[in-house]
């Protein structure tokens, strides 16, 4: 059984425009998949369906065998760790420690336990010593790691990342990529950055105009210039 399954997912915005039409794909445990496509293709909208923040007009999302619905969002969100594009949206408490402990506390962990978990994760990501600092005192790269920490602390089965390396310098990118490669979670990364996709993933799912247009091995498409142009992708040479 795949860990993550999207079946014929369709979604319409409140004003009626189609955002997703009949998207279908599956991700097995341990796989690392890149979600590619130009801006406006519907990548972010798709990601919001994976933990029930958006519910489909038709079709189904299944996580670890659980169908995503209004009643199952709690279990789904314990299994899916969604890291958003803007770290400032995820670091909203006065200190990093509180931000990272937020998830465990919501799941019923006691304050001492939550604090211990938070410290541990921050330490493992190289942010030890920053526990009492507020996010605006961190560099862009550190903020991204902190945002990741807020999700990793809950031990999700699948990590979903929306543009994790945007606005990062080369050093920041390398640090983040290295970190993600070491981890064993199933990974779905939406990104513009083909180099990052190549560094992390073997498989690529490509979207355009709300539909899934390609699903295959990443290596096969990175050298096909025509293919890249056709799908609005840019490969860093």
């Amino acid at each position, binding site marked *: 059984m795949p860990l993550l399954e999207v079946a014929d997912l369709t979604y319409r915005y409140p004003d009626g425009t189609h955002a997703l039409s009949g998207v279908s794909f599956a991700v097995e445990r341990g796989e690392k998949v890149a979600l590619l496509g130009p801006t406006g293709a519907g990548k972010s909208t798709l990601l919001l369906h994976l933990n029930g923040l958006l519910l489909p007009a038709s079709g189904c999302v299944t996580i670890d065998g659980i169908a995503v619905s209004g009643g199952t969002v709690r279990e789904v969100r314990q299994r899916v760790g969604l890291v958003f594009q*803007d770290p400032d949206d995820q670091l*909203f408490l006065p*200190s990093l420690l509180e931000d990272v402990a937020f998830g465990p506390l*919501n799941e019923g962990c006691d304050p001492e336990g939550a*604090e211990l978990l938070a410290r541990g994760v921050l330490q493992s990501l190289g942010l030890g010593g920053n526990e009492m600092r507020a996010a605006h005192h961190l560099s862009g790269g550190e903020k991204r790691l902190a945002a990741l920490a807020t999700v990793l602390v809950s031990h999700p089965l699948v990590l979903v990342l929306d543009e994790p390396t945007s606005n990062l310098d080369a050093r920041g990118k390398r640090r983040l990529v290295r970190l993600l490669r070491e981890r064993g979670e199933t990974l779905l990364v939406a990104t513009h950055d083909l180099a990052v996709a190549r560094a992390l993933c073997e498989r690529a799912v490509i979207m355009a105009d709300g539909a899934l247009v390609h699903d295959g091995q990443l290596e096969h498409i990175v050298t096909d210039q025509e293919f890249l142009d056709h799908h609005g992708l840019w490969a860093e040479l």
Partner: protein
Amino acid sequence: MSFRHLDQFAQVSSPITALAPALRVLGTVVVALGAATLRLGAWPQLATLAGLVLVLAAVARIPLRTLLLRMLGPLVFVLFASVALLFLVPGEVVARVWWIDLTDNGLLRFGSALGRAFTALAAAVILVSTTTFPEIVQALRELRLPHAVTTALGLAYRFLYVIVDELERLQRAARSRNAGAGAAKRRRLLVSVVAAVLRRALVRSERTHRAMLARGFHGEIISLHRSRVDARSIMLLALLGLVVGAVTLSSYLAR
């Protein structure tokens, strides 16, 4: 924007910082109330309370110069308001400055308002100099203020930094695009910048809400902090309350 310095204020540890934030806040309220409700013209009691506050500042390891500097801004406003009282309150004329009559009532109110405000102000400055914003939010939570308010304040801390950053960035961009524009145009630009910041803030709050939901939020922010209120702090607060209460009451009893 003059709020960022608050992050650096509460660095010095002292017997005051050892107290629970909730009790520091209560202590400030007690002193402010005591000072604000002193009988008019009770100069000895006023001096006593002012002296008490200065002693507390010393205990908090705040240098007098620093204390006065931090009080300066609000004190200027209070000074203006007090001087207004000097001229506006009717009563028996006791002196004449240029063309303005100074009344006995006016002098009484001027001195009382200024003195009481000074004392209460000093207490508030001691609080802000020894307590970080997150600690104040925690204190308000422990003091049972409405959840909606303490949660809003807790989130407002980060929002404020992000909003002000955006505000400054947009202002700079607008200014560089419109260098040399007249005052009216600059005012209109400022308004459109502020509106843009408002819009972004509201949209950002929706994204933040999603991020909160994604991590299991269901309506209330659970605090990581444990209450630091202990018997010793409560006794100290009670002592402070008794002293301040005695001084204030005595201003009404002694004639």
